């Protein structure tokens, strides 16, 4: 059974989003996603300063098995990317919700977070497949 953190929001494409105290939103991929991918070997993050729209391709996560696109769960400007993933991509597998974060967005419209799935809805969706 994969871990689904109750305080996070989720996209159907398996990204999670966490609203931080400073108003930025941290984005990563769920435990279910990292488990399905297997050992991650490369992560391509967006660039700091890049503007993304909700649902837009924001990067790629490559495992030995497959390459998977990462989508921005909400719109905004990228303010930080997790550079540690360059040397230690396996962190995505070992710590998908904490050290394995991909990038942070300054949201252009916080209400977009409400359009994402809550933990229960994501659990239902991801267990269907």
């Amino acid at each position: 059974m994969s871990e689904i953190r109750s305080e996070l929001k989720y996209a159907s494409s398996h990204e999670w989003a966490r609203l931080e105290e400073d108003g930025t939103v941290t984005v990563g991929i769920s435990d279910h996603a990292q488990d399905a991918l297997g050992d991650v070997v490369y992560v391509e993050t967006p660039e700091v300063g890049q503007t993304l729209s909700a649902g837009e391709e924001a990067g790629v996560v490559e495992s030995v098995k497959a390459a998977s696109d990462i989508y921005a769960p909400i719109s905004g400007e990228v303010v930080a990317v997790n550079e540690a993933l360059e040397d230690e991509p396996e962190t995505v597998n070992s710590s998908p919700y904490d050290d394995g974060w991909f990038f942070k967005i300054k949201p252009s419209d916080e209400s977009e977070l409400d359009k994402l799935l809550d933990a229960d809805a994501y659990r239902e969706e991801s267990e269907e497949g």
Partner: protein
Amino acid sequence: MGNKTALYDAHVAMGGKMVDFGGWDMPLHYGSQLEEHHKVRKGAGMFDVSHMTVVDVDGSGARDFLRTLLANDVAKLDGNPGKALYTGMLNEKGGVVDDLIVYLRDPGYRVVVNCATREKDLAWMNQQASAFDVTLSERPHLAMVAIQGPDAIDKVKEVMGIDWTAAIDGLKVFSSVSRGDWFVARTGYTGEDGLEIMLNNNDAPGFWHALADAGVSPCGLGARDTLRLEAGMNLYGHEMDDDTSPLQANMAWTIAWEPQDRKFIGREALEAEKAAGVENKLVGLVLEERGVLRAGQQVVVDDTDRRGIITSGTFSPTLGFSIAMARVPVSVGDSAQVEIRNKLIPVRVVKPSFVRNGKSLV
């Protein structure tokens, strides 16, 4: 829910992530395929390969039958009971029905073919056998475990005990020794030293657990694929299939052309192909920047429209970058480009062999 080997329960108990492979429930990994890969290159890892098909070939016509059926020549094994031979089994068009290893049992031979091709292979072999005094007997009561890595043989000796020490110590590479149902071969699919052992299904779980207790790590199909690709070993269905000539699959070295009067199936087609000029060859590709080469990606080798294709690609855990095998036009030079997500990425072209005994060849 597919077929289960005698080790299914052991895999589940050890945390195996079970997936379907050719109709069998097999472990993809037990947590991390990268760790399992490294364990084989540095210590000892073990694989359940019981899903493969074991067929004994007996009868007065066995040798003649196999000399017709196989592109390599079992006459090379004469006088050397236990010795093994790697070969393709071809159709009349010169395509590869399967690749396999044949051992001289004396009397008779043992053939090990792939799992996914089992029905096709047995039908083909039975069809060809009708012209010979030969019996084909499948051996489903046998499980098979491959133990590979620099420490593999020592670990197996530890587990199998004093009765087997002399026999294993005397075992040359690509040779085998058997006693009862136990069949120990110094062969493998990883590029490391090691053994592939057939044994009765009933003995398999005890053997597997004893090896684990001795420090051998269970390894799954994921690691098996990255190891064999690093070692430049073909995987049927990728590097070759019914429509691929062995001359285009880095298997020319497995064809015994001499003696010229040995009419093996597919010989004429291969001779015609050689006379006309072989059009493609199997090469290795190395991607030194970020990214992973994957089967099906197209390869640009020259200014024409002709494209090669990647037959197998992966991230190489031992080398730390991506490698692939590709079938490309023979005009290829020492570099090429691969189309990855609509971009042309440069790659180095090398011989299709990347790691041997833990060391990089590229």
